[in-house]
């Protein structure tokens, strides 16, 4: 019985080791991205096209933007694909990323209950809408997770003369503002279940299956523009980064073929993401 046990242990160790070396050698990259890119269904559509063309498998770890950048800083991903320009540029400046490539944009929309307690529906100015919500005050759900959406939300509140982070740390904000620390889907679920307002990216909203009583209340303001960027994690800092495979991915995404694929992704006939890899200043 003892020799049989030893054999089983050795076999298990071999299995563990074998599988791990196999995965080190196969053609794959790890892309740290955001929950909104995943939840919108873009990757499910886009990545098979890339894999078919290049034979490279793409493993997406979907986290908030802040967490995705941290994953890149730790060297646990090869490519980072997020939507927070300021944080991305900081990432490159710190030497964790090689170069930032703009890829595509979509927009944010303000979601709220159909009953619209703050009466903001149809407003064209997002900052006015936010001010009205605060004044009432109506319940507002924030992702609170350092994601790209969260950063955009904080930026818009600042434009509405409300420094959320300052007020939160001074404990001056009332219970109308709820920071849940989770992804877009969870925030939408929470807003729907509690009759609150929430800022969402259009892609996740269109793809979301539990809309319930929620609807878009404000859209179209130019400040709701949401830019996505992609970066290769710096192999100089993290030698294990698969730089050729990662760069192949980036090159494809910004290539005419990749950009067209992005534009072709539609939900119910509506295009979600607008490719703008060649644009400047984004």
């Amino acid at each position, binding site marked *: *019985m003892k020799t049989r*046990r030893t054999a*089983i*242990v050795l076999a*298990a160790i071999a299995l*563990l080791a074998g*599988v*791990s070396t196999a*995965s*080190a050698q196969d053609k794959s990259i*790890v892309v740290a991205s955001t*929950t909104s890119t995943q*939840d919108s269904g873009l*990757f*499910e559509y886009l990545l098979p096209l890339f894999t078919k063309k290049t034979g490279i498998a793409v*493993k*997406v*770890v*979907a986290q908030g933007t802040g967490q995705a950048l941290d994953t890149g*800083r*730790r*060297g*646990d991903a090869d490519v980072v694909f997020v939507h927070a320009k300021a944080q991305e540029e900081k990432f490159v400046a710190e030497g964790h990323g090689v170069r930032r490539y703009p890829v595509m944009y979509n927009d944010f929309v303000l979601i709220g209950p159909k009953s619209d307690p703050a009466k903001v529906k149809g407003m064209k100015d997002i900052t006015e809408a936010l001010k009205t919500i605060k004044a009432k005050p109506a319940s507002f759900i924030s992702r609170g997770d350092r994601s790209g959406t969260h950063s955009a939300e904080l930026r818009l509140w600042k434009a509405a003369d409300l420094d959320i982070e300052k007020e939160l740390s001074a404990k001056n904000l009332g219970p109308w503002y709820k920071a849940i620390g*989770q*992804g*877009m*889907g*969870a925030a*939408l*679920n929470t807003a729907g279940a509690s009759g609150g307002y929430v800022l969402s990216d259009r892609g996740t909203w269109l*793809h*979301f*299956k*539990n*809309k319930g009583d929620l609807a878009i209340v404000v859209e179209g303001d130019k400040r709701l523009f949401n830019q996505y960027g992609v970066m290769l994690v710096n192999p100089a800092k*993290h030698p*294990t980064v698969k730089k050729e495979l990662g760069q192949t991915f980036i090159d494809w995404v910004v290539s005419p073929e990749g950009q067209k694929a992005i534009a072709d992704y539609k939900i119910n006939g509506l295009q979600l993401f607008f490719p703008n890899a060649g644009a400047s200043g984004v």
Partner: protein
Amino acid sequence: MPSDASALQLVLGADPALMAIVGLSVTVSLLAVGFAALIGLPIGAVVALTRFPGREAAIVALNALMGLPPVVVGLAVFLLLSRSGPLGSWGLLFTPQAMVIAQTILVTPIIAALARQTIEDLWVEYRDELAALNVGPFRRVTTLIWDARFSLLTALLAGFGRAAAEVGAIIIVGGNIEGFTRTMTTAIALETSKGDLPLAIGLGIVLIVIVIVVNALAWIARRAGERFAG
């Protein structure tokens, strides 16, 4: 996975992506229980049968570790396996192996603590008799483990149930990567957050069925033990 198809259709029609998820869940948890048994059974036996300073504290610790919060284990393993962490060169983060490691850590105390209890109870019964039969120490251990095998199997099944049901550890160390580290529990978490509740519910039903089956097996094992050996 075609998330527009009704959950029931997917489950009954054995949709290949769904089967892959179920397969991964079961494989990861089974491997974890296997390793946990290799480590936990001897620990349980040693603590049950030997007298050493701090033995009472060890028993308390084992019982307490049964309640290790999965997210905490996930975080600890994540920090260990990250490329910036001490074991980063193994390149195991965001892989099924990392999930097996995390679940092994979760399940080992359960098996060790339950084994300790089982073996100690049987030891109290057998001790004088084995001494009268002049059985040597190694043989006493193997005798206890063999005669307690049905109860020990129940401990293993309890460990499997715990592993199959948890999500906190494996979502952190596995990354919930589609087609690679997505299990039933992490898929349920994802589909819920995407608002695709029917699919999440479908997966939940499959998971509950598995848990019920495991518990039925545990019950059968206990009854077999009683019938077989009195």
